[in-house]
């Protein structure tokens, strides 16, 4: 099993504050992803990475930035959190012919 952990598991933050979510993997996978899950919308891709310092936007990238300075860590940053960014955030890695393995998720509430 791919070792993938997300931190924090839960966070409450105030509108306008910066927030960084961390995804850590232990098995040197090249591809990493951030998704958000919202009722009625399912899971939607925010950003993804195909290597160190190589990232690109997904379907719902506005208001989010990412960084990947090391293979094992993929960070998602909300520069100025808004209530519309209240969601559950999932990180995933991808393995050829196996597909995605997801982290346990981060529940973010912006008040």
């Amino acid at each position: 099993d791919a070792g993938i952990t997300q931190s924090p598991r839960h966070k409450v933050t105030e509108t306008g504050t910066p927030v960084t979510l961390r995804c850590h993997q232990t098995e040197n996978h090249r591809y990493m992803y951030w998704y958000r899950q919202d009722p009625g919308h399912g899971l939607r891709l925010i950003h993804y990475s195909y290597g160190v310092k190589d990232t690109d936007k997904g379907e719902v990238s506005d208001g989010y930035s990412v960084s990947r300075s090391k293979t094992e860590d993929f960070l998602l940053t909300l520069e100025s959190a808004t209530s519309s960014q209240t969601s559950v955030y999932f990180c995933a890695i991808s393995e050829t012919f196996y597909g995605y393995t997801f982290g346990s998720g981060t529940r973010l509430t912006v008040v």
Partner: protein
Amino acid sequence: GIQVEQSPPDLILQEGANSTLRCNFSDSVNNLQWFHQNPWGQLINLFYIPSGTKQNGRLSATTVATERYSLLYISSSQTTDSGVYFCAVDKVQGGSEKLVFGKGTKLTVNP
């Protein structure tokens, strides 16, 4: 982009019953996966099945790529099968997939 439709949206079963969940997609794909999200929110990869048939215990899946659909079969359902089942697809294969998710089928298995 690719559209993914899952049916039924909700399904209620008695323990021991069998069920079939369907996933239709709007374009040819090279990657199709089925996931189970348990009541605690964890997303589990059930099958990587861009074509053909696979079985894992009481679960099996069939994808008919030429007709753009996939089916997930659950036999002798148990209460632990409850949760939401997602189908996700992409045209890309080989580790760089950016999966597009359907909205899921919510399964409730009653004792």
